[in-house]
Each structure stands twice: as C-alpha cells, then as structure tokens.
C-alpha cells in the first residue's frame, strides 16, 4: 500500500474532468423531466454529439466549433424524439429507447473514417493569478473551459428553476400540463424547447468525452454514461444542486477507486469497482428522504383536446 503515490491535486483535478460529461447530460435531462417529459435517449444523443463534435473539430480544426456542432447534433436528434412524442403522441419510453439505439447506429455510420484520428487540442484556459495559486489553482482553475461551462449551465438552471418566471412556467408544465394549458401556456412548444435543450446538453457531454477526456473517436465510446445520467436525475430528486453533487460524487469515486487500485490498497477490487454506483445512489437516496417527488405529469402524453 502506498498512499504517498496519490497526489491530491491531480486527484481532485481529474475528479472534475471525470464528472463533467455526466453533469452536462444530467442537467439537460433534468430540464426535460421537469417539463414533464421522460427522454430515455440520453445515451443516443450523447454519442451523436460525440461524433458530430469530433468530425467538425477535425474538419475545421476548431474544437470550439466542434462543441457547437455537438450541441447542434444532440438537439437535432432530440427534435426527432420531440416530433414523435409531442405531435404523434408516441409512447415516451419506447421513443426514448429507440432514440438511443438509433443514435448508436447513426454515430457508428457517421464515424466511419474518423477512427484513429487525433482531434485538435482544446485551448488551455489560463486564468491569470487564480491558476497560479498553490493547490487551489491546480485543482480548481487549471481546466479546459468546458468544465466551467458545465458548472455554469448547472448553476443557471438552478437559478432559473428557483427564481425566474421561465422556471415557474417550466415547472407548471411539468407538474400539471392541463392546468398550464388552461392558463394559456403552449405546453407542446415549451416541452419541445426543453427537449432540445436536453439534447444540446447531452451532445456537449458526449463531445466532452470524444474531444477532451479520451480524446479520440471510437464506436460506442460513451459506454453507458447516458444511462447513469438518467439514474442520477431520479436519485437527485430532480434538483440541479443534487445533480451537481451526484455527478461529482460519481466522478470522484470513479477516479479514487482507480487510484486506490493502482496504489495497491487491500480492499477487494470488486467493491472498489462498484463503489461509484453504490455511494452515489446511497448518498442521494438518503438526501431525498424529504418530501421531494417526480414532476406530476412526468411521462404522460399531452394533447390540447383531452
């Protein structure tokens, strides 16, 4: 056992990187579910965003354009889901699942010819003064811009839901779409916007994996992170601040367990390997002991005539 070989600065820094794709995808899905729609297609939108972003970044040489394309790709795919569920009134669970399968296939097709290519590096963000602080600078202020964008989006959603009129409307639509409709809100339009926002966030999360965290393109590279994001939203009882906590917990334990393994700690590896899932769920379940529950209209189809 050799704890000395684990550097806390590097550990905490890589924690933030590992958590970012999950945070982005889960925040997007949270908005979707708060509007009363259950989109199980997160994995499909993530992987589509991953290849859209990767292909664009490689062809244009600009990782920022790649990120924009990833958000666009994810949103475009989610529009398909929106059409199916909001206009055709198709079953949301089935549509979401097929979106995942479709996204995986589509990304594999689009990714032909992009294997083994190195994407352009993301510009390092150097924040004057802050980055040079001892310890804190290394942990908090030496990341790529996407880490901060993820945090920013999460904080903005939190503020929007809690303090803004837009947040109230979104919640009203999610809690009781008939009442919201009676009040004169366009339920379908609001939901489509929420779905597309969720798709864009998932796409960004996917591109974070293909452009920054790994960085390369491989088929099926999101490997289930979309599903974890879905679970995270539920265990976080649809609250952005808990999504943030959950994502950092999950990312943190994932990184720590690998570090402990490499340092030769005498805890059986199986327990270490399952610990991110267990600890995250446990903490969030304990926290959700208060009276929080799912949005009232979650998963129910809406039609103005009914």
């Amino acid at each position, binding site marked *: 056992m050799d704890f000395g*070989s684990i550097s806390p600065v590097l550990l905490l820094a890589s924690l933030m990187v590992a958590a970012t794709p999950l945070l982005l995808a889960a925040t997007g899905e949270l908005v979707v579910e708060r509007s009363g729609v259950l989109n199980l297609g997160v994995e499909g939108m993530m992987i589509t965003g991953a290849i859209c972003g990767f292909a664009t970044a490689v062809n244009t040489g600009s990782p920022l354009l790649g990120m924009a394309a990833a958000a666009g790709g994810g949103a475009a795919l989610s529009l398909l889901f929106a059409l199916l569920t909001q206009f055709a009134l198709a079953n949301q669970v089935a549509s979401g699942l097929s979106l995942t*399968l479709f996204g*995986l296939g589509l990304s*594999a097709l689009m990714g032909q010819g992009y294997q083994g290519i190195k994407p352009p590096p993301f510009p390092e963000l150097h924040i004057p003064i802050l980055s040079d602080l001892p310890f804190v600078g290394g942990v908090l202020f030496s990341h790529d811009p996407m880490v901060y964008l993820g945090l920013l989006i999460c904080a903005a959603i939190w503020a929007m839901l809690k303090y803004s009129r837009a947040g109230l409307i979104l919640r009203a639509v999610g809690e009781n779409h008939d009442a919201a409709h009676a009040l004169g809100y366009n339920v379908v339009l609001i939901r489509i916007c929420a779905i597309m926002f969720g798709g864009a966030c998932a796409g960004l999360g996917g591109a974070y994996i293909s452009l920054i965290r790994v960085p390369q393109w491989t088929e099926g590279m999101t*490997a289930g992170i979309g599903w974890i994001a879905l679970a995270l939203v539920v265990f976080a009882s649809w609250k952005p601040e808990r999504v943030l906590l959950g994502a950092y917990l999950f990312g943190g334990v994932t990184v720590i367990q*690998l*570090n402990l393994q*490499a*340092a030769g700690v005498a805890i*059986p590896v199986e327990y270490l390997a399952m610990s991110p899932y267990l600890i995250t769920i446990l903490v969030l379940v304990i926290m959700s002991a208060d009276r929080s529950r799912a949005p009232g209209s979650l998963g129910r189809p809406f039609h103005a005539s009914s």
Partner: protein
Amino acid sequence: MQLKTILTTAAMALGLATTAMAQDPTKVGFVYVGPVGDGGWTYEHNQARLAVEEEFGDKVETVFVESVPEGPDAERVMTQMALDGADLIFTTSFGYMDPTINVAKKFPDVKFEHATGYKRADNVSTYGARFYEGRAVQGHIAGSMTESNTVGYIGSYPIPEVIRGINSAFIHARKVNPDVEFKIVWAYTWFDPAKEADAAKVLIEQGADVILQHTDSTAPHAAAQNAGGVITFGQASDMAEYKPKPRVSSIIDNWAPYYIERTRAVMEGTWESTDTWDGIGAGMVEIGEITDAVPEDVKAEALALKDRIGSGEYHPFTGPINKQDGSEWLAEGETAEDGTLLGMDFYVEGITGKIPQ
C-alpha cells in the same frame, strides 16, 4: 449497425429465396463483444471474417452481430443465428462460454467455435491464441525502457488469460530489470474508452512510464500521448495510428487462417470438435513493428526473443519460477503445462497486490 446487419440478412434471405436452391452457400455467423470499429479485438475478428468471404466468394455467406453483451443476450443472438440457418458460428469472447454450450445443445447440427474458452462438446470447438508469448516480448521491451521502474497494467477481468499475460510480461520485465514494479488496475470491462483513459491517466500520475493494456480500445494510447514520455503497446490489433510513439510495438491476433480452415472443414464435412491454442510459431500471434523509439539493442533482443519463442526453443514460462507466496511453481528448466496455464489463477513471485476473486 445491428439494424444494418438485420437488413443485410433479410436482403440476403430474399435473394436466396429467389435464386435457385442449387448451391446453398455455407452460412457462417460471428458474435462480437465490441463494435467492429473498436480498433482492437473485435476489429481483428472482423478482418478475419472478411478474409473468409474473400477466400470462398459466393460459396460462403457471413453474418455478424456486434456489441453483444456477455450473458443472456448472447444466447438469444446465437439462437437467432442458428435458427436463421447458420452452419458455423464463431463466438468471440470468453464470457460467451456458457451461452455457447447451452445453444449448441439445442442445435446439434450447427457447429460452434468458442474463442478463449475451455468448455467443449461434440459440436463445440475452442480456439485461442497464446497471447502470453507476445506479452513476453512486450515485457522485455517494457523492462528495458522504463526509467521510473514502474509499469502500469490495465487489466480487464481477472480471468486466466489476463493473469497469464500479466505474469508473462512481469517475468520478462524483471529479467532485464530487477527493480521493475507492476501497478495493476482492473477496469472490469473489455471496452470503455473513457474508463480506460482514466485508468491510464491514474497509472501515469502514479509514476508509470510504460502502459500495458489488456482492454480493447486505443484510449490508453491517447492518454499516454497527451502525458508525453510514456510508451504503450497495441493490444489485439496493431493500433498503428499511434506509431512511432507512444505505441512502440503491439500484439496482433491473426485469426484469418484459422477461420478459413474451419469454414473449409464445414464445407467438406470434415469438421470435428478440436481444441486449438496457437502462438507466434503458427502465426496466430504476431508482433507488430517495433518502432525507432525503442533503442536498437533492445529491439534486436526483443526480436531474438520472439524468434526463440516462435521456433519452440524457448517457453515464456520456464523455471525456476515461484508463485507470489514464495512456493515453488516451476523447477529449474521445467516448462509450464498447458493445463496449468489455462486455469492460471495466481501471480508469480514479485508482483504486489492480490488477484480479485
């Protein structure tokens, strides 16, 4: 891609129905654990499938399903293939062992070939490659080139095949560098680029300057490239896009000759249940180009080692070798039996850490 496969199958079935029944092509199915574009394990199996098509042309028809989870899903996929009229089915991952045996019982007329397993039946053969021979060569290069004396090893699952590779690499790294230590991380996946990249980063942060991997994606190479000053080895496939550094060499699985031979056996009706375990000598395991990042003398030694293993002159597990607990495993000059190697569940002396049970 699954949809594409289904569509292709459907199209082929239609085509079959309309063209005469005169010459039924032999139908060969392949079950893959990862996507064919993984650039590693599954990629090579698919290359071999393409080689079978090229060899036999119209006389053979191949189908494949990729990214099949190891478990009940695999059984479903194999059953479907057998129902669709496959004559020969290759199941290409260790975790397909029990599903293969189960499905084979239900379809006695269909021939099955299971990769890297040990359970056989009248219509189930097993085949595998002696990857540990290639690991010996990697271990030699790793031990010679490490400056931090720390070699990181990303394991997939603690099964004999992976443990054998770790032992073989370790023994040969220690031979050239008595101070070398292995840090082993189990990823519990064959294919998850993000997790593999994380594992590689962690190992590098903890001082490893050589990364060996027994997982299928090229993500560890990308991580090593970003870190700089770290070398890696291609796993299962050449992973040549990371040449000349970090990837300094590789183990390549060449399944094509075996698949062609077995397909021919089915066509000619001479197929029998067999157990094949070939290595460098038979060409099933190849060592990818050793790049110029490796010093000349190390490269020459590595190639000499490869030739000695290939000719059968040297066995990578030749005594004296002790087990991790210090008890004797192989006496001076004794070589390991295949039975022990196939069920290997212990580390050799000098490796720290425990094998997860």
